[in-house]
């Protein structure tokens, strides 16, 4: 009996591994520890650009001088924008130096938030929403289409360094599901944009990718030509007339 139980358990375990490829659910783009690589190691010098140093000063001015560590998230964000969408160890060390905390306190924050990338991403980082409404409206197909078109795996950068695809949780566009976000790091922190493309189809996302590759800026927002922003397709179907005034007593009749 024990043997049978063990065999059954083994089958179950195998089933689990078959169903879920291990890479499919990783929130963050990297491991929780750092491995030295030529483009990411503590010995590389890193500092904010002159323009960003002004911004750093501005960010720090938002917080009391004895609570500089409060600026960790805005500064990490700025560092990420400046460094092409990802944080190296030396950039995190620089942030730690500025806010006067131990580097590990910055690593803790950077590893906690999935929007901080700790491995290289493409100049255009495409984030597919994977939360329930988008998933029901076909976000898996959208992701598959993107991955197939670009010929990469999730969180992998294309050979030309232009694109990478990741998954993100709900970004609040459920009414226009499915949606993707394009984080544009091609122009540094000055030209940084973070645009939503909503109501996408597997065909449309490929068109968007190709437009981005050509350097165009496809219109953001809903990609369904029949919709205006979050309005219903083909115009409004209810509430067509003027809104009725609130009911009032006919004062003259009194």
């Amino acid at each position, binding site marked *: 009996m024990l043997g049978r139980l063990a065999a059954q358990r083994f089958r179950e375990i195998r089933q689990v*591994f078959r169903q879920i490829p291990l890479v499919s659910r990783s*929130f*963050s783009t990297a491991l*929780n*520890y750092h491995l030295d690589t030529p483009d990411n190691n503590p010995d590389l010098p890193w500092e904010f650009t002159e323009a960003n140093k002004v911004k750093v000063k501005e960010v720090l001015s938002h917080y009391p001088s004895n609570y500089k560590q409060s600026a960790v998230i805005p500064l990490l964000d700025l560092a990420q924008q400046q460094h092409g969408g990802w944080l190296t160890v030396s950039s995190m060390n620089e942030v730690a130096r500025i806010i006067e905390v131990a580097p*590990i306190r910055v*690593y803790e924050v950077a*590893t906690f938030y999935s929007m901080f990338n700790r491995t290289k991403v493409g100049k255009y980082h495409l984030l597919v929403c994977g939360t329930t409404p988008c998933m029901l409206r076909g976000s898996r197909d959208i992701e598959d289409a993107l991955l197939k078109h670009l010929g990469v795996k999730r969180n992998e950068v294309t050979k030309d360094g232009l694109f990478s695809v990741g998954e993100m949780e709900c970004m609040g566009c459920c009414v226009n599901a499915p949606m993707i976000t394009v984080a544009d790091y091609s122009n540094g922190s000055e030209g940084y944009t973070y645009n939503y493309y909503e109501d996408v189809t597997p065909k449309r996302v490929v068109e968007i990718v190709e437009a981005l590759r050509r350097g165009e800026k496809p219109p953001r927002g809903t990609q369904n030509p029949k919709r205006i922003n979050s309005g219903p397709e083909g115009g409004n179907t209810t509430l067509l007339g003027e809104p009725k005034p609130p009911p009032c007593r006919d004062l003259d009749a009194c």
Partner: protein
Amino acid sequence: MGLGLLASRTLLRSGKIQPGNFTSLLRRCIVSTTELQNAEAAQAQAQPDTDLPKRSPVGGARVHFPNPEDAIEVFVDGYPVKIPKGMTVLQACEIAGVDIPRFCYHSRLSIAGNCRMCLVEVEKSPKPVASCAMPALPGMKIKTDTPIAKKAREGVMEFLLMNHPLDCPICDQGGECDLQDQSMAFGSDRGRFTETKRSVVDKNLGPLVKTVMTRCIQCTRCVRFATEIAGVQDLGMLGRGSGEEIGTYVERLMTSELSGNVIDICPVGALTSKPFAFKARNWELKGTETIDVTDAVGSNIRIDSRGPEVMRIVPRLNEDINEEWISDKTRFFYDGLKRQRLNDPMIRGPDGRFKAVSWRDALAVVAEVIHQVKPDEIVGVAGKLSDAESMMALKDFLNKMGSNNVWCEGNGPNPNADIRSGYIMNTSISGLEKADVFLLVGTQPRVEAAMVNARIRKTVRATQAKVGYVGPATDLNYDHEHLGTGPQILKEIAEGRHPFSSTLTNAKNPCIIVGAGVFERNDKDAIFSVVETIAGRAKVVRPDWNGLNVLLLNAAQAAALDLGLIPDSGKKIESSKFIYLMGADDVNLEKVPEDAFVVYQGHHGDRGVYRANVIFPASAFSEKEGTYVNTEGCVQTTVPAVPTVGDARDDWKIIRALSEVAGACLPYDSLSAIRSRMRTVAPNLLNIDERQPATFSYSLKPESHQETGTVPFGTVVENFYMTDSITRASKVMAQCRTLLLKI
């Protein structure tokens, strides 16, 4: 877990466990689960007990009311308990005699509240509350034994065990694991988790701490310990959710001198001792409560031994000295006790090689030689690890031979043994917590006395005490002001020309700590008189506060000065013909004349042996009973934990035997007899485990007319890990030296 449960049941049935607290804990795990399945109904049925059996606080916890008006009353399981305001629910329960299970809560660390194991029910609270983080409020009705509380604990336990590997049989924590014990006592006997468990990459924290990160339950005790007590912000909590793990992110060794303590505070087997890994199970070890001799702090330790072998060293609680921490040197130097030991008496032959001989022959040779030299050519030096008894015997013996050239190494050429307050820590180690300004003179407490440094760091963290430091630039792990490197700065402070002198004068409880490295300086008296001037200006010595301290380096130093082991003059070693080294390895052996006869009595083949003509093997501190005085003047004794090796004998016995062969028999044959002799010299040495404060203060000291030199203070301890013959023989300490000290 299943096995453990089975074992507990068998034990219970066979009745081998004494009825008491432990049994009641075990019994709790065998509650029937029927009432747990319907918590509300069971609660309604529960009858209030009318006759409450008496309870006593957990671990003899006592309540201290700083302000009697702030006392509040809470009810724990129906018992009224009076506690001071600001205590947490968990502390209230402890005083009421209920031990709440916990993982993340540790009384010496900040409160995290993330393990949720300490959930209790509080009346009128809609859900169970985490007792470690909840302040107790007046009239709170806390229930720790209700079905809701039990069910909450079972649930937390099930979640904790979800990702915990079932490798207790190969885990070094097995048998002393909080998770194991508490899952026995409070957990369910089954789990519902059927998916695969997560695994985490192990981290390399250095040669002392072994990590098995898959076992980690994310209590963050180690992170808080490293940040708050050790003062090295290397560890952190990385990632989120089920991917959360403890780590350093970048590969980094834990370079703290207190890193070994994370082994003790880890409630599971995630952080264990690397040298002890797979060496023994904790239940087969014999614990001997003794003290540490590697520095002058005298940390309280327990030597765990198996047969003749010391397996590991763990700290004992002593609030006045080491709290519950010990330094890495104390914890891991024990492998040095097994290496380089001297087994047999040996005589160096004409060919320069040692030959093992019998005790009789060796003693006869030495006795013959000692009669051939003039009395003032005889010199005796006691080593860093000598106990008071053997130093007494050495002094008595050499005095009988007509010589008075006996001293203990580290006390310098011209020690001050007349006024006790001039060489001990008058504030006491726990008293340092009351100080608000520190002035460290020529001392780096982090390497000289790690536990004292931990105390200073605790004070600095708690009260933002200011620290001024005079000496070579160093990394103390707290904020300090580096005033300068030489004695000139002290003069400036004494004359009020330095900004720090006003900081000292304005302080409520100023504290000056002078390092024992100053003893070796030529301008020692001048430096002490400058320090006294500073002390006088800043009112450091008052009837209610004595903040003038000397931080000693070695375990033997204070006792040697108490017993009056002072040389006639500092230059004796150059003109000596007979040198008796009792474990003294740091004597400058190049100064020893070619024709001098050197006897080395000790337990390790260290530096002293190279020059020795005769070797007497002695027992180490772990093998003998001996009295030691720590830097604050607290008298403690070591207790033999393991038998000694080979033909080695206790130090005082060797000298006693030698005295008889030499025809100057010492009048004591037993430890109690030698202690009554000690009473006539230094009566304080018999008040075991008591701190005898110095009675006279500096004011009685004759004035010094020496001028301070300009030589800057040096680093006294270059290598924290290897300071004496045992630590120099230790492989683990050598690894630490190569890996952790390359800065």
